[in-house]
Structure formats: structure tokens, C-alpha cells
């Protein structure tokens, strides 16, 4: 009760599904925003007590220090396989993976595609910031053409490195029903929309409907070499045009994937 006795109520605080920790993420990095959105959704859907999260290898390797639920740290790229083991053993648990672009779209491409194709009833939170963060700025499968990284000093050359992989579109092309969408967190409106996508993804899991993957465009000011505010603008100017936002696949609804003959 407030000392004044007035009828004030808290309208903002730490979600129950997040532990109060000093962040290890760099200033301006949007991993923290995405952590918070996942935690808020777990709280709002009443899933925190059944949640088991998979931490990746990458900047989010310490995700187990932030999410206030049971967690498993996975080897690089294998989170969807580990999640499969848990979900098949304990279908009553709410199983999610939290993976970066190197983890999911490079070393873990087989695991994500096959988990999606089996229709595992898990939720994948895929954070795409177009670069390897933790290892200090190497090219990712999602690095944009001409983007400079420590392993593409003259910018990514699509003739040598191929074009950036659009994961949401790739996963949507599978025939197995799924909920697949791409959001972003560089402006408040997109943060709200991304939270809604996460909510729908976890609901598909709790209702046992289908596999769900939410790709989220994120920033890496440190390795992009940009101040935080410019990094947010860089997402809008460079990433959103190549990685369009929206829902790509929904059971019984939107399906931008090619139709089978």
C-alpha cells in the first residue's frame, strides 16, 4: 500500500519471467527488448511455470541468467533438436528456443529446418542482427550485401558469399503447417506488433496447433560501428527493405509459401 493511502497501482515493472539482473548486452543492443517481450508474453499467457527455454551459443548464451524459468544451454545451433527432445518427452511443457543468426541460420540450419518440418510444437525466437556479435563482428548468413564485417572487410560480395538468407521465407516454404512471422523492435510500433506475434506464437504452442518461429530484426551497434540511435535507423533503412515484416505462414490462414502441385 502506498504511504499516501492513494489508490495508485503499478503500471510498469519487471515481468515475473525476467530476473532482475545487470545486463551484459552492449549499450543500444535490442536483445534486452526482445527478452522482455518474451517474458511479458510468458507472464500474460500464464506459461512461466511450464516454460523451459533453450539458450544458444552467441550473445544470448547467458539467456539462462535472465529468464526466470527452467533453462537449458545448448551447443551451437542445436537448440531446436534439444527442444525436440524436451517436447517429445514432456509435451506439457512450454518449450522455446532463443537463437541468433549464426546459431540458427548457419551452423544450426539443419536442426531448425527439420524441427519445423516435423512440426515440433515449440516456439523459436530468432534474433537477426545481420552479424556475429559475440565473436566480434564476422559475417553472418544474414549479413546484407556490401555490409562490412571483420571477415568481409570490403563488404559482403554475393558472388562469393551468396545472398543473405531470409529465414522466415525459407521456413514458410515447408508444407508442414506453422506460424511463421517477422517482426522488428527498432520503433515502438514494431515492438508492439512483435509482442503480438510472440503472443500468437506461444498460443499456437499451448493450443498444440503447430510449430512457430518469430524472426526479429535486432541491432548490433558495437559491431555495426554505429551509435545506438543510428543503429535503429539502420534497421529501418537497410534491413526492413530486404527482410519484410509480417506474417508469412499461419495454419488455416496466410501462406505466402509456394503451393504444392
Amino acid at each position: 500500500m502506498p504511504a499516501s493511502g492513494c489508490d495508485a497501482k503499478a503500471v510498469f515493472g519487471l515481468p515475473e519471467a525476467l530476473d532482475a539482473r545487470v545486463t551484459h548486452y552492449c549499450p543500444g543492443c535490442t536483445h534486452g527488448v526482445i527478452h522482455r517481450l518474451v517474458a511479458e508474453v510468458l507472464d500474460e499467457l500464464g506459461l512461466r511455470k511450464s516454460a523451459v527455454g533453450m539458450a544458444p551459443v552467441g550473445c544470448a548464451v547467458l539467456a539462462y541468467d535472465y529468464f526466470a524459468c527452467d533453462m537449458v544451454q545448448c551447443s551451437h545451433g542445436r537448440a531446436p533438436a534439444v527442444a525436440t527432445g524436451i517436447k517429445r518427452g514432456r509435451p506439457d511443457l512450454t518449450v522455446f528456443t532463443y537463437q541468433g543468426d549464426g546459431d540458427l541460420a548457419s551452423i544450426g540450419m539443419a536442426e531448425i529446418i527439420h524441427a519445423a518440418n516435423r512440426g515440433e510444437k515449440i516456439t523459436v525466437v530468432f534474433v537477426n542482427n545481420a552479424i556475429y556479435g559475440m565473436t566480434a563482428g564476422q559475417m553472418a548468413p544474414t549479413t546484407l550485401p556490401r555490409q562490412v564485417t571483420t571477415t568481409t572487410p570490403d563488404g559482403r560480395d554475393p558472388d562469393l558469399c551468396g545472398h543473405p538468407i531470409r529465414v522466415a521465407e525459407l521456413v514458410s516454404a515447408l508444407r508442414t503447417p506453422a506460424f511463421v512471422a517477422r517482426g522488428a523492435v527498432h520503433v515502438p510500433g514494431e515492438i508492439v506488433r512483435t509482442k503480438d506475434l510472440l503472443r500468437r506464437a506461444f498460443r499456437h504452442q499451448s493450443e498444440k496447433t503447430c510449430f512457430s518461429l518469430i524472426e526479429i530484426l535486432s541491432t548490433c551497434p558495437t559491431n555495426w560501428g554505429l551509435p545506438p540511435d543510428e543503429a535503429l535507423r539502420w534497421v529501418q533503412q537497410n534491413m526492413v527493405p530486404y527482410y519484410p515484416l509480417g506474417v508469412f505462414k499461419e495454419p488455416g490462414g496466410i501462406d505466402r509459401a509456394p503451393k504444392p502441385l
Partner: protein
Amino acid sequence: MAKKLMKGCEAIGEAAIRAGCKLFFGYPITPQNEIPEYMSHRLPQVGGAFVQAESELAASNMIYGAAACGERVFTSSSSPGISLMQEAMSYIAASELPVVVVNIMRSGPGLGGILPTQSDYAQATKGGGHGDYRVLSLAPWSVQEAADLVADAFDLADFYRTPVYVLGDGLIGQMMEPVEFPEDRKPLRPLPPKTWATTGWRGDRPRAVVNSLFLDPIKCEQQNAKLQARYAQMRAEEVRSAYYGDEGDLDVLVVAYGTVARVTLTAMEDMKATGLKVGMLRPITVWPFPRDALAEAAERAKAILVAELSCGQMLEDVWLSTASMRPVHFLGHQGGVLLAPEEVSAAIRDVAAGRSAEVRYAG
């Protein structure tokens, strides 16, 4: 239950189900395909789940997940597939999770061939993946023993929170023998509750975090020490071996495990008339290695003959265990070529008659 004629691979699968294992994740590879095939039709009957993984990498990480949430789980593969699983084995060992892994060994290196060998001994006994860890490795010599050891493997895995290997060769996997599953089998020892499992955090216990990352070197060293203490306990309490043959002084002591020990026993029976005093020590746990039992038997022997289907991987453990107290001789085949009883008995006679050259550690 009456004895039933079963293929080794199928007996292994049935033994796992009777041990309460309801989850199997695996990838096809010869000569162990009958295990996933058996599990794919039996597990749904007992309310379990079978997943044919996209690779051994994925299968080994699926068992990591299933073990993390406290479920009994196993996988099986053969040599090249087991190599692919080593990343997960290191994580599983480091994260202190119980899993059972069956390796029906085939020849190598590389793609090798599909016929039986014992050339994954070093991988199974020295760790296998990166970092300082060991896995308890059980080596059956019959279909019945394979079934029995699979049941034990689940208990040992749960008790020590470690991967346990059942190390068979293609013969164990493919041959048919009578097998009996005990109806009233009790756990090897009381098993602790899995309070560490990620079953959802309701606040009634500390949050469960399955993890092998320790960025603080002191904490990483402490975790290593914890694992080593457990390995010391396994060395003290889990060593298994069997001895066959003369109880007194020996002309030759044979050291052999798995199907090679079966062949050696036949050779010993065939050569009884020669009057040679022969004994055989059969490691059942190849790790921890039966060092004391071997040293004790070696005391009574004039010479030691190591017989195995590799270029001499167990040979090194025999040297280390006997510390050059007796001359050591070697008989081996590789590539899927098997040892015949006649070949083993000829080698025993050669060693006894001084016609065989001692082999020394060559680095």
C-alpha cells in the same frame, strides 16, 4: 519369462523399454538399424515417442534435451555416427545428464566398412569428445549380456548422472541368441530423485539450469573437479570383469573383451589337451578398466596375450595396468576381419613356446 530367440539389436531395444525408457532418437546406420526400427514400433505401444532425427548431431542433442527434463532416454548408432555425437556427449557429460548410448561398432577409420570391429575402444574409454571427461563403458559378449547391461546402463547413468555406453560390435548387434528378460529386476541401487531436471519452475525448488558454460576459470575448474570425483567413485565401485580358466600359475593370460572373448573361450576349450595353463581376463567395463583384476591375474602368468579387433587400443591399458611386469603379446585384426578360435589358440601356443615377439609401447 521364457527365453526368446532375438537378434542382439532387438534385445537391446526391448531391454531399454523394460528399463522404463520411453524415448528414442536416432539416425539410420548399418549395422544397428534394427534398434531404431524396433523402437519405432515398440515405443508407441508403451506410450513413448520415437523420432528419426535428421542426423546423429541432432539425435544426440535430442537425447540431451530429453535427459535434461528428467526422462530416461537412449540412442544407438555405429562408429561414424558415434563420432558425430561426440559434441553432444561432451556437453552431456559436462552438464551431468544421464543418457544411454549404444555403439554397435563397425570398421574405420573414415567410412570404413560395415563389419564388426572393436576400433572405437579409445573413443569410448578416454573421453571421446573435447574436454576432460570419461564415460562409463560396458562391453557385452552375448545377446543376453547386452540386454542385461542395457538395463544396468540406465541405472548407472541415473546414479552417476553421466553418459553410459554399451559397446558392442556388429556381431553382438546382428547375431540371434536366446535371451531372457527378468520380470522382477530391481535397480542396481536406490536412485536419487531428479531434482535438477527442467520440468518447469514452480518456485518449490531452485530454478533448474542445465549448463556447461563456466566463464569464470575457478568455477570451470571446480566443475571439472566435481566430474573427476565422480569418475573416481566409478573407478572404486563400478569396475567389472570376469576371469576364466586355470586358477594357478599360467603359461599365458589372454585379455579380451566382447565377442573376441567368446572366440578366445572356444580356443581355450579346444586346446585343453595341450596341457598349457591358460586363463582369460574379460573386461566387462572397458572404462573403468579392470586394472587390479588384470594385475592380479598377470602375477600368476608368464606372459600376456591381448586379443582385440583393432590395431591395439586396449593393448595400451594392459601395458599401463601391468607396468611391464610380464611380456605382452598382441593378436588383432582390423577392417572387419574376425578372429577364429584356431588363430587364437595358435597365438596362445606361440606365446607359450617363445615363438611370438613381445610388443612394447612405441608411443
